[in-house]
């Protein structure tokens, strides 16, 4: 794990560091996984809410700390009891009660706005230790296309995520789009995502779910409407047959090593349901639940060191494969456009 495999996102901190640390809290930094990026309706509204709350926090904190310093250092002499009384009643009771009531009302109204909205598309997301299954559903609830760890959304359309879990509690969170919602056994939680900007946004499981909770990432790609439709129909297709001799060999290794028992590659005998669907693996930017860039090198490394890279992962480590077999397998997987 020592090697730095991750491709830096759009957040070259401290390159975008503003003049002072405090200003940083205001401007933040538009990273792939940052709440400041605000590329969804809910995230944008919450960001505005944050700025307001943040402003209140700073003002009140400065006032209170200032009064403390004033009373103890600047002028530690006796002030009148009557003044102190007014100070407690106005500053400590009346103003906070009014302010808190306003905050409560705003919070509750915003909350109802961001839950239970209408949506035009249904996507079922299943949290599994330690990856995500995405199933695009039609109006009858039948699966149109299945993918894993990386999914696409059309911009300016509301999609409803149906959040379930296959094992323990997970929490689905793409900070740039919306707040998080937990995936809990026995429940189907809903979250409507309505992106306002195209782009690539990273998310991550937010509820501790076991040894490799830290490595349970996902990628949301927000596309314009045509791109999205093209992507979806491509995802719904079966896999392309392997084109080069190396990847034909790779497919043999895939099938002989029993990969198909857990992974599906639609259009081939591999139809396992336990692990991520690999039909269009090569169309994804990243592998291993958004942990590595998707290239031959990383695929080989992942196959040969699975358990070491992701402790507690269910997939066995295929270090018994020879280098040539690994290369062939990686080539096959790299062909699954």
């Amino acid at each position: 794990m020592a090697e730095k495999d991750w491709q830096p996102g759009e957040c070259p901190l401290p390159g975008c560091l503003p003049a002072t640390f405090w200003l940083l809290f205001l401007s933040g930094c538009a990273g792939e996984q940052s709440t400041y990026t605000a590329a969804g309706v809910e995230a944008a509204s919450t960001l505005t809410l944050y700025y307001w709350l943040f402003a209140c926090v700073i003002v009140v904190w400065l006032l209170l700390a200032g009064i403390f310093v004033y009373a103890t250092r600047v002028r530690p002499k006796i002030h009148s009891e009557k003044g102190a009384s007014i100070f407690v009643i106005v500053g400590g009771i009346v103003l906070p009660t009014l302010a808190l009531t306003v905050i409560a009302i705003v919070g509750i109204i915003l909350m109802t706005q961001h839950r239970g909205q209408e949506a035009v598309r249904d996507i079922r997301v299943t949290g599994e230790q330690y990856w995500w299954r995405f199933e695009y559903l039609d109006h009858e609830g039948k699966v149109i296309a299945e993918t894993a760890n990386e999914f696409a959304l059309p911009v300016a359309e509301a999609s409803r995520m149906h959040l379930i879990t296959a094992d323990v509690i997970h929490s689905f969170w793409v900070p740039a789009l919306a707040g998080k919602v937990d995936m809990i056994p026995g429940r189907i939680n809903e979250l409507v995502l309505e992106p306002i900007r195209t782009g690539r946004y990273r998310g991550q499981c937010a509820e501790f779910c076991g040894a490799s909770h830290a490595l349970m990432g996902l990628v949301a790609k927000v596309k314009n409407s045509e791109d999205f439709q093209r992507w979806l129909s491509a995802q719904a297709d079966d896999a392309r047959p392997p084109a080069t001799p190396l990847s034909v060999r790779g497919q043999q290794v895939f099938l002989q090593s029993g990969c198909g028992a857990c992974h599906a590659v639609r259009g081939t005998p591999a139809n396992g349901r336990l692990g991520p669907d690999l039909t269009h693996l090569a169309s994804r930017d990243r592998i291993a639940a958004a942990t590595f860039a998707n290239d031959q090198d990383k695929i080989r490394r992942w196959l040969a060191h699975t358990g070491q890279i992701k402790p507690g992962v269910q997939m066995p480590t295929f270090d018994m494969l020879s280098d040539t077999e690994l290369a062939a397998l990686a080539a096959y997987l790299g062909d699954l456009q």
Partner: protein
Amino acid sequence: MMPVNLMEYGLWRLLAGPALAALHFVVSYGATGIFCERSDNADALLTLRYGLGAFTLVILALIALVTLLAWQQGGFLQKAQDRHTEDSAEGRHAFLAHITVLISALSFVGVAMISLPILLVGSCS
């Protein structure tokens, strides 16, 4: 077999406001949970909101009553306040009455704030 010392005026009255607020919370929270888990019918929810709204008003009225009674018992007069540090049964009485007024008033504000969702939230999701 009640703890006799607690039967005296002060401490029970003191707890009346918080107890009413607690009752209000348990009923509101429990009813909402049961309604939303067991029936997703919008009309049912409306009934629930009216019911809880009325219940809230009753609780608020009762807390107001407790506050008022304690106030009348001398809890909030400036003269009485000077006696709070007094080493006498009257001082203790005035103190407890004053605390009762304060606690009940806080319970009132608490109940009012916690009822905001009844006013503002129209669906279970």
